């Protein structure tokens, strides 16, 4: 006689008064594939945990957003924000789509050049640019946005040494009605710091101001802030052009668009609380069109990172142990920790399992594998009873994690890309011991010990 299907036993206390009137969007919380590739096949090839990137999703999102913007404002150029995810394969997809590179360090600059991006297709931002890096950027014709007066002086020194007048942009910050106002980067508009910067560059024999840049914040949820930003930058462009007889050729509105991740502390699901990217694009392009006449359209650079890519990434992890805490709370230990998941600090990820599971959902906590009390991946997840070996698929995951992750206690895992034909490609292999100890040097006298 065949045995009956096993469904884990549970007992749940009934409580009243916990209903809420908003509810939540229905989410299918089971998936056995990503972009057509079976989870089992991905894990068999790449191991667990593994970050998984969906190439087709990247391209489709890029095309949708670019089409939306360029159909409203013709002179727009997207630039891929390297710090969001600078794996070669990711950057190459964006470059194939026509995006140039936006970098914020000499390392990222070198990475873009190594990948084949010409210097004049790189926007070099950030508050710290060593003189050597500035020199290379100027020599190769990169678009350089200066952050502070010391950097203006530095750029002037470099240009003078090169014996060449160089084009530069300046980064502005301003009040766009959002809190907190980002004021640490660039020159402030309201206190005329930006005006003074333009004036100083105007006086310089070696610098030529041709661009204005601003990036008003991160994970912005208010499209109107971008309308305010565009208005201020156009006003400032007019002041500079009128008073200093300069021509501003480009406006760079930065990025900061949100993804569909759920910020901790937010009540509503992201499907409700996060405006679609088209709202941000409409705010920017409508303001451009209403403030400018067609004969003065500058090139507009957009440096969107997270908003374009986050939903194209997943982390596949495996449940290794199940434990009931003294408080009665159920906990799981998975094979991926917060050292890979920098964004777990501020997001509650969407969680899916790799198989349909019968049984009552229960609030639980999901720990990573690190021997550290802080290694909490999901503080308050609602999951069906999971068996050891069940795979959890966490998302959105493609922005910032594989640039801000750290090697700590365990090796960093592989990153796979599901290609648009369904093939599974490893775009960054898992680390090994040699990757970690390679840069170390052991002094001769410390090489021997007896225990």
């Amino acid at each position, binding site marked *: 006689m*065949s*045995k*009956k*299907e*096993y*469904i*884990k*036993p*549970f*007992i*749940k*206390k*009934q409580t009243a008064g916990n209903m809420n009137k908003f509810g939540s969007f229905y989410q299918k919380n089971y998936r056995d594939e990503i972009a057509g590739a079976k989870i089992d096949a991905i894990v068999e090839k790449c191991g667990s945990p593994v970050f998984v990137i969906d190439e087709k999703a990247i391209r489709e999102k890029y095309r949708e957003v670019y089409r939306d913007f360029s159909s409203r404002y013709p002179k727009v150029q997207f630039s891929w924000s390297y710090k969001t995810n600078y794996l070669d394969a990711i950057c190459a997809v964006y470059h194939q789509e026509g995006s140039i590179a936006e970098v914020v360090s000499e390392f990222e600059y070198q990475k873009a050049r190594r990948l084949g991006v010409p210097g004049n297709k790189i926007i070099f931002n950030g508050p710290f640019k060593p003189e050597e890096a500035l020199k290379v950027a100027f020599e190769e014709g990169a678009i350089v946005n200066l952050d502070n007066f010391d950097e203006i002086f530095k750029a002037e020194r470099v240009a003078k040494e090169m014996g060449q007048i160089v084009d530069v942009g300046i980064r502005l910050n301003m009040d766009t009605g959002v809190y907190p106002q980002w004021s640490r980067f660039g020159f402030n508009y309201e206190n005329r710091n930006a005006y003074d910067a333009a004036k100083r560059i105007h006086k310089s024999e070696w610098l030529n101001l041709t661009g204005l840049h601003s990036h008003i914040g991160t994970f912005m949820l208010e499209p109107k802030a971008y309308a305010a930003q565009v208005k201020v930058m156009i006003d400032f462009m007019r002041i500079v052009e009128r008073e200093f007889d300069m021509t501003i050729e480009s406006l760079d509105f930065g990025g900061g668009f949100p993804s569909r991740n759920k910020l901790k502390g937010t009540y509503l699901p992201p499907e409700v609380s996060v405006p679609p990217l088209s709202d941000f694009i409409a705010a920017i392009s409508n303001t451009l069109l209403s403030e400018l006449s067609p004969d003065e359209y500058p090139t507009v650079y957009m440096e969107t990172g997270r908003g374009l890519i986050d939903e194209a990434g997943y982390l596949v992890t495996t449940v290794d142990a*199940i434990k*009931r805490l003294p408080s*009665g709370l*159920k906990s799981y230990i998975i094979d991926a920790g917060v050292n890979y998941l920098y964004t777990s600090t501020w997001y509650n990820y969407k969680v899916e399992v790799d198989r349909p599971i019968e*049984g*009552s959902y229960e609030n639980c906590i999901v720990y990573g594998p690190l021997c550290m009390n802080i290694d909490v991946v999901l503080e308050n997840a609602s999951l069906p*009873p999971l*068996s*050891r070996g069940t795979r959890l698929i966490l998302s959105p995951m493609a922005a910032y994690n594989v640039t801000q992750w750290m090697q700590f206690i365990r090796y960093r895992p592989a990153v796979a890309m599901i290609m648009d034909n369904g093939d599974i490609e490893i775009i960054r292999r898992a680390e090994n011991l040699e990757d970690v100890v390679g840069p170390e040097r052991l002094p001769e006298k410390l090489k021997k010990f007896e225990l």
Partner: protein
Amino acid sequence: MNVEKLTRLAISDNGFIFDPITGHSFTTNEIGIKIINLLKENKENEDILDELAEIYSVNENELDVDLMDFIHNLKNFSLV
């Protein structure tokens, strides 16, 4: 383990549990009812595991962990 409190519970066939002393109510599933009934018969854990393993298609280790977890929950709810 004192299973006296389990004997006072009203348990329906489809898993609704009512504790007439505290007024608390609970829900469980088919296997949960089986485990409670076996505990009420003062069966040892090993015997419960054997009985369940005969009925259900399940790995022994998984069943062992799940039984401990279920009994832990009964303790948390002050039912044993």
